[in-house]
């Protein structure tokens, strides 16, 4: 009868479904499983400027120099270097370095990697690459980088993922699909990448440096904080980050786990659109600042994580006086007075933010506190694309955004945010101030030393007075690991490194 065949269909479907399901494979500890928040967008080092992708690139590639948490530079693919002048850096390359495809890394590859970053393909990291004029090949193992302008911050930026050295041959062969087929010199090579879920890297046995002690690195993307913590607790993940505030205690007090906290080089801020009335008036900006209990807002929104910044430079960035500034005190009377002086009455404004929970929370409290001085406000939570687009259109009033300083040089903490030339790019306050621009230019033109330090101190104090933005939060990098995971330490730029990790029984 027909019914029998129906039954058969059902059975086949069932069997099919189970086949699809497959079975999980339990592995010996030759694999490190990391639970990250997001997946990498691309593994092409110059096609992104986001942290998860940078983390992937960090394991796949090497840069000419390495910079540690404290900003100390050490040799990478370049064994040594020499500053020929303010605009000419000479690098002596390491010999015998192999790409994952077996080819040797040569000067040609380095030149190709850096010059490729200056083309449109590198639009996302143009801040770093735009100053490169040329890369000159002296011989197979020597290159000279020529800059357009003196900029001492450029050197350390080479340690950023944009400075990763890629194989010229492999990149040209892969064309547009290079982002999925990376070929670097790093300690790991890509095995598989299931987008939105996980990528699997395998130890590169011809690596020139110290080889990782385990074979496979698996990085899963687990967007839900609760799920990440559970993965850690159940042993499904060896390392998990970020850990959110309400799980801090849970991870910290778990005997099988270790909690790591590290101040992060980032600043979340409440920006003003200074081209729009009345926010072009410094008194209005100061008045609003006075009305806000920033310490309370930060504490309530971030709940024990991070701190309220004193200046624009995060504490770990060179020349920061972040920790020397006394905490801000809410002063409603002062706020009212300042607004009155500015002739502002019945102000109505919008506070924009993206979906990130802490920012929405902050906006919600800011809204409540502004109401106390008679400012009515409306919160608009926008998804990322619409948010950035809206900011470009200059119609916003107040907005909450963050800035991560990937390279611990003070220039990168300020220039992209507030320099006149960054208008139309990432300067969403549209702050354009000749005094600041001059300070930034001077800061770049000086090598590290007391002179440079003085300039950045002045810059920080100047910005605290000008107030194009109210600093809200310096974040922390927080990660949890299994107790047997050793050699891991979160990095303040969030580009955590897994190559030194090993397991202790």
């Amino acid at each position, binding site marked *: 009868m027909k019914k029998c065949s129906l039954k058969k269909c059902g059975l086949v479907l069932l069997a099919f479904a189970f086949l699809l399901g497959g079975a999980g494979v339990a592995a010996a500890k030759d694999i490190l499983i990391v639970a990250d928040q997001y997946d990498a967008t691309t593994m092409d080092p110059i096609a992104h400027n986001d942290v998860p992708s940078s983390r992937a690139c960090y394991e796949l590639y090497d840069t000419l120099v390495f910079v540690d948490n404290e900003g100390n530079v050490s040799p990478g693919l370049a064994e040594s270097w020499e500053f020929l002048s303010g605009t000419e850096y000479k690098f002596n390359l390491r010999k015998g370095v192999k790409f994952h495809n077996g080819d040797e890394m040569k000067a040609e590859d380095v030149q190709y990697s850096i010059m490729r970053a200056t083309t449109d393909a590198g639009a996302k990291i143009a801040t770093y690459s735009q100053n490169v004029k040329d890369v000159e090949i002296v011989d197979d193992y020597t290159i000279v980088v020529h800059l357009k302008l003196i900029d001492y911050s450029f050197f350390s930026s080479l340690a950023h993922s944009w400075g990763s050295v890629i194989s010229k041959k492999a990149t040209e062969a892969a064309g547009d699909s290079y982002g999925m087929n990376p070929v670097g010199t790093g300690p790991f090579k890509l095995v598989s990448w299931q987008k939105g879920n996980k990528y699997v890297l395998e130890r590169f046995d011809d690596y020139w440096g110290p080889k990782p002690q385990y074979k496979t690195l698996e990085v899963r993307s687990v967007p*839900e*904080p*609760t799920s990440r*913590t559970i993965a850690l607790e159940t042993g499904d993940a060896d390392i998990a980050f970020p850990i*959110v505030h*309400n*799980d801090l205690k*849970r991870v910290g007090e778990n005997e099988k786990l270790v909690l790591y906290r590290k101040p992060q080089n980032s600043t979340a801020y409440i920006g003003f659109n200074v081209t729009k009335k009345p926010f072009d008036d410094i008194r209005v900006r100061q008045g609003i600042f006075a009305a806000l209990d920033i310490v*309370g807002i930060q504490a*309530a929104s971030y709940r024990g994580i991070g701190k309220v910044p004193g200046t624009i430079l995060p504490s770990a960035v060179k020349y920061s006086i972040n920790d020397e500034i006394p905490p801000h005190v809410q002063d409603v009377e002062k706020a009212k007075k300042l607004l009155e002086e500015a002739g502002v009455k019945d102000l109505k404004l919008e506070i924009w933010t993206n*979906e990130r*929970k802490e920012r*929405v*929370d902050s*906006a*919600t*409290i800011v*809204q*409540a506190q502004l109401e106390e001085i008679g400012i009515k406000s409306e*919160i*608009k*939570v*926008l*998804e990322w694309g*619409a948010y950035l687009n809206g900011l470009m259109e200059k119609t916003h009033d107040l907005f909450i955004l963050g800035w991560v300083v990937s390279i611990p040089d003070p220039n990168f903490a300020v220039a992209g945010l507030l320099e006149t030339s960054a208008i139309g790019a990432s300067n969403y306050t549209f702050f354009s101030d000749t005094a600041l621009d001059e300070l930034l230019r001077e800061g770049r033109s000086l090598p590290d030393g007391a002179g440079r330090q003085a300039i950045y101190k002045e810059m920080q104090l100047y910005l605290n007075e000008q107030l194009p933005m109210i600093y809200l939060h310096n974040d922390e990098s927080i990660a949890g690991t299994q107790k047997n995971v050793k050699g891991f330490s979160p990095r303040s730029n969030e580009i955590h490194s897994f190559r030194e990790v090993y397991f202790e029984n």
Partner: protein
Amino acid sequence: MSDYSAAAPAVTGRKSRRGLAEVLFRLRKSPLAMFGLIFILCLAFVAVFAGVLAPYPYQKQNLMHSYETPSRQFWLGTDEFGRDILSRLIYGARISLQVGFIAVGIALFVGGMLGAVAGYYGGWIDNGIMRLMDVLLSVPQTLLAIAIAASLGPGLFNLMIAVGIAAVPNYARIVRGSVLSIREMEFIEAARAVGSSDLRIILKHILPNSMAPIIVQSTLGVASAILNAAGLSFIGLGIQPPYPEWGAMLSGGRQYIRDYAHLTLYPGLAIMLTILALNFLGDGLRDALDPKLKR
């Protein structure tokens, strides 16, 4: 068997009721439908008088009292800002009902008109409209709503439009179907004969006669609109804070599900009960309005 079922209509002892009274009478026989009706009426009452009924303003923060579990002061506890969850749920009812009913209103108006026109005129107009509906129907409703919500941007009104437009084909189909079955009936012919205009015939004669399936679909439609809207808010394409939309409340509380489950439990329960009530009511109405089941 046929004797038995045929015997039933012969029961003529009861007074026959007309219209609404009859529907209500039949509805009353289904306890689940009555539960649905009463629940929705109560919810509507709460929504309308939220300002009076809610113990606190929905946006009132009290950071000293955050994450409190239910107590006598805060019946359903407080959220991460110390806002009273009960008050937020009460105001949330207003938003959810608004979204549900207005979205269905939009869908009903647009879909009803399109369906009526398509069914009434037939021919290429019918073909054109219904092919367009096919196009919309071949994109699943949730996806369609997301696409529309994404392009309109977040916000209460946009949410209603997104959810409403996504539901248009349902109503267009129903109304067209009813119109087709009614169009050729004698009283329509009669109306045409006395020179009624097309619009008048559609509005006065055809639409009221396709009311039963529309009412049922609308009731169930409000449920799915509320659900859809909550889903969109849940993934961040819906209502903006501090407005207490249930789906957004749920989404906001999910991070705290291990420590403070009441942040997610109550909004979820509110959504579920509302949808349940509407579904029960819709089912009951279908039974009450379906002439095939008239006893």
